[in-house]
């Protein structure tokens, strides 16, 4: 629904109109309006879109890094594995939120892409570890040995035989991470480290916070949305995992 924002949430709804400021939820404005007369419902649809986009970008970047590192580590083992795993450990022990804030504040211009990249950087070690452990166990499977005996190169074996088998856990982790990224992005924005020009769910909550006493709807509805989107991502992950398991296919 959020993808259709430009269609279902007309621009004029989020324009400033002081005549309809701080209206409680009604038929015209189902989630009420904010202190500048903007429709909260329409705003949420736009905000969800931004949040999802940032989270999706971050997850894609995360998968790219994590699968790369995890695959090399798990497949080749040895020294290269040790080096890569120590690097992951280092990133892993740093407190996530602090690292995020530091990275984001290092740059003068805060774009959504930058935030996505920063989130991918703090999150990849978790996934890399899972990918590595999957690879470690899969590489010992006899179908990998059989593939080798048929004359397949390492790259082909990784891409064709091991990765597809490791994919289901990557997907599940990815969907959980989408949920986390939405929360992280909201947290960052809430703390004032977000992209000031973007409307995201976190921005909505943070702006509405000041009016919590007089216009509760401005913060509450974006909050509920975060909850709902997060839940949806997790359910999607479960569904995808079932869909990827050939044994449940008819």
């Amino acid at each position, binding site marked *: 629904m959020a993808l259709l924002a430009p269609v279902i949430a007309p621009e004029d709804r989020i324009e400033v109109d002081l005549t309809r400021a701080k209206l409680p939820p009604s038929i015209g404005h189902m989630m009420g309006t904010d202190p500048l007369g903007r429709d909260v419902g329409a705003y949420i649809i736009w905000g969800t879109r931004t949040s999802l986009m940032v989270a999706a970008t971050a997850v894609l970047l995360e998968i790219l890094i994590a699968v790369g590192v995890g695959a090399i580590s798990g497949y080749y083992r*040895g020294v290269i594995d040790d080096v890569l795993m120590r690097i992951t450990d280092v990133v892993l022990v740093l407190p996530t939120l602090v690292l995020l804030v530091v990275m984001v504040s290092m740059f003068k211009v805060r774009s959504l892409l930058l935030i996505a990249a920063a989130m991918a950087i703090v999150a990849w070690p978790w996934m890399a570890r899972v990918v590595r452990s999957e690879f470690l166990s899969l590489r010992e*499977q*006899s*179908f990998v*040995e*059989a*593939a*080798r*005996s*048929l*004359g*397949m*190169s390492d790259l082909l074996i990784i891409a*064709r*035989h091991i990765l*597809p*088998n490791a994919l289901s856990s990557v997907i599940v982790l990815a969907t959980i991470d989408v949920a986390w990224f939405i929360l992280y992005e909201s947290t960052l924005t809430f703390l004032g480290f977000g992209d000031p020009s973007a409307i995201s769910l976190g921005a909505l909550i943070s702006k509405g916070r000041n009016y919590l006493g007089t216009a509760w709807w401005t913060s509450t509805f974006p909050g509920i949305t975060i909850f709902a989107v997060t839940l949806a991502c997790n359910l999607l992950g479960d569904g995808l995992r079932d869909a990827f398991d*050939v*044994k449940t*296919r008819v």
Partner: protein
Amino acid sequence: MGLLEIRALKTHYHTVEGIVRAVDEIDLYVERGETLGLVGESGCGKSTVGLSILRLVQPPGRIAGGHMIFDGEDLLLKRQREMEKIRGRKISMVFQNPMSSLNPVFTIREQVAEAIRLHQDISRNEVSSMVVSLLERAGIPDPWNRMKDYPHEYSGGMRQRAMIAMAISCNPLLLIADEPTTSLDVTIQAQILELMKNLKRELKMSTMLITHDLGLVAELCDRVAVMYAGKIVECSDVGTIFKRPVHPYTEALLKATLTTLGTRVREFYSIRGFVPDLISPPRGCRFQPRCDYATDLCSKEPPEVEVDSGHRVCCFRAAQRYLDEA
């Protein structure tokens, strides 16, 4: 000259406890079109020989020396890239555990097709019909429909058939079958045995059958090499091994096999003692601690004698007898 000639091959596993000499300077050859049985008990290094030929020994294992002349070229001098072109095309392998040798996320069709396309330039349309004919040859009923199945929808025997189909997809010169029937139940074993006999006749490829099942050897092989603790102790044609074994280990191995010929088995013969530790094997003849005929002489490295043409044995006792006769 034979298709494959192995000389002084050494494959070692470097473990924390020490170097395991799984294959210790063995000599072996396979002629074109013949089936060689490599027999021995668990842990004697016979599977390692198979993996060594394909250069697939994984760390901590390492081929420590020797020569493997295959079709005129030394496999040990090849780069990995060149080996990838040989594996599956000229030498292919069938493994012991069909239950896990197929990738669970792809259909049988996809996997057999992959094996074909890896080495042969064949258009997509033709691949399908090739897959069907290969599966048919391997004895899979109704291949048009069954090839769309995933491995878990196949039984163990069917999976082994699919593996064999993949292994013969490029008409290899040598097929290494590592205990192809061990994990299957008896009736399926007989079927796979029948299949391998037929393929042997049809394809005229050389086969190295790695097994501990002497019945399988008797049915399928032309020649047999008996392996004990990393060494080949006796090598001969199949008839001689069964009728006139010379090495005490071969003799004991045959005695330990249940036969239906005797009226009743009173007591099941078993070789006393255990397989020696390959990190520090017994000095001299490795079978000496378990051998009924061992003498003081046996603590020295046994000589290899050719007691008959093509019948080689590593044993002092055999050498003595041979000299006496001569």
